[in-house]
């Protein structure tokens, strides 16, 4: 995106490796650095390790070696650090993962009250303004099962934003949606990007990448095959493997 000021490096990933117990090597010496306010789009074939990378970033998955530092906090065995990082890193999942036994309001209020220690009224005020922002203020009292997929995903985004994270991770946030609902979720994500949120986005939505992506990482077999500006990767890929993949998805 043009005209955006990028800050210092907020995420530093240094040669992380991850091998699952069954022997599958999901990440192999993967490194990257991401600046404040940068929107990084991660693409790659199925099994490339995109999800594993995102999940490592907020400690949902342990990695075997290498280092991850987020806003100066190392993601290591220290539990305090891990909780600190999870507070600062929001994540949006492919299948929404809303809490089905809670209303939309309760879903978004929960972590504000439990983790940020706000009282109910303060939390509700934030929640209502976030629901306004994602365009569903009238659904506060609904249960997730009463919402469309697009609405559920927007609630999930609001829920993550309620923690006022410094980084937002999106793992194929629109892949499970009916085509007519993809736009409404992408619009919310674009707004966030324009407001300067640091975002790491795994997606197949090339329109989104072109519009707000600052950089594209093409991954395969747990490594970065090629990375660069959106223009460079999509229009002028250097590696044969990248060319092949771009040819398939465009």
């Amino acid at each position, binding site marked *: 995106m043009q005209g955006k000021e990028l800050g210092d490096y907020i995420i530093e990933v240094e040669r992380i490796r991850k091998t699952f117990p069954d022997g599958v090597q999901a990440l192999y010496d993967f490194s990257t650095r991401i600046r404040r306010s940068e929107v990084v789009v991660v693409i790659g074939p199925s099994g490339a390790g995109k999800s594993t990378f995102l999940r490592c970033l907020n400690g*949902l998955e342990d990695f075997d070696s290498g280092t991850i530092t987020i806003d100066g906090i190392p993601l290591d065995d220290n539990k305090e650090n891990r*909780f600190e990082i*999870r507070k600062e890193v929001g994540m949006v999942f492919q299948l929404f993962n809303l*809490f089905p*036994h809670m209303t939309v309001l309760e879903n978004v209020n929960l972590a504000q009250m439990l983790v940020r220690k706000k009282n109910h009224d303060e939390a509700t005020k934030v929640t209502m303004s976030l629901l306004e922002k994602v365009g569903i203020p009238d659904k506060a009292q609904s249960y997730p099962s009463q919402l469309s997929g697009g609405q559920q995903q927007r609630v999930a985004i609001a*829920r*993550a934003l309620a*923690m006022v994270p410094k980084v937002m991770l999106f793992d194929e946030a629109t892949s499970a949606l009916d085509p007519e609902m993809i736009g409404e979720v992408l619009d919310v994500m674009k707004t966030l990007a324009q407001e300067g949120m640091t975002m790491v986005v795994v997606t197949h939505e090339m329109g989104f990448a072109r519009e707000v992506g600052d950089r594209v990482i093409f991954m395969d077999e747990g490594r970065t095959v090629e990375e660069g500006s959106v223009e460079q990767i999509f229009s002028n890929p250097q590696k044969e493997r990248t060319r092949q993949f771009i040819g398939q998805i465009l």
Partner: protein
Amino acid sequence: MPPVNNKRSRRIWFPVIHSPWSDVIKFLLVLAALTWLLYRGTESLGYNWQWHRVSRYIVSVKDGQVIFGPLIQGLLVTLRICGWSLVFSFTFGLLTALLRMSDSVVGRGVARCYLELIRNTPLLVQLFFLYFVVAPVLNIDRFTAGVLALSLFEGAYASEIFRAGIVSVARGQWEAAHSLGLSTFHLYRYIILPQAIRYVLPPLTSQAVALIKDSALVSTIAIYDLTMQGQVIISETFLTFEIWFTVAAIYLVLTVILSTMADIMAYGLKTTS
């Protein structure tokens, strides 16, 4: 072709089988048949039925005052034992389930040992062990020993139920909660357990029913529960058949009430979400 046959016979039988009255009629027929068999049997034994003598062991009225008989007193003891045991067994069950799923190797080991020990020895032996060995050492009374034995025993089975309920909650719920920075306690308290309760309520009810039935064993350590009171009355009055029928009926009423309450609760849970 069997499927076709099946279909036809089902159609023919449909009105009979699915009328609610046919169930009632069948039930009454079976009951009548059993009663008749029993009557014939006891007649040949020369058993002298004296149902009129039973009521005083339940309640009687003396000088305008209602007096609860020994069977009701026994029932109250059974209720007290079951109430405490229920609370403790579910607590043990939940704690053990959480321990088994924790990161702590020691915790998992302790849970494993407890489960193996309890599930591979008879309840009666556990009860005797607690009453004759542990109770004198720790100086606890027989009521506590009985409650402890029942709680430990049923708790081992309840833990299996809780564990199954907990793992049945979708993986994504854990991940969402973690990604929001929730602590493990908050995760279980607000996300996992409220969802698991739906899965565990039916099997937990069966477990509670089993507990009520197993509680009769405490009569062996001379706790005057419903079963013990029945035995005492019989030894004094020789109303063997009448009292055992009555005792069984009281247990039945207890367990039916419990199951009904659980059904209502399950219905409530279903409608609130």
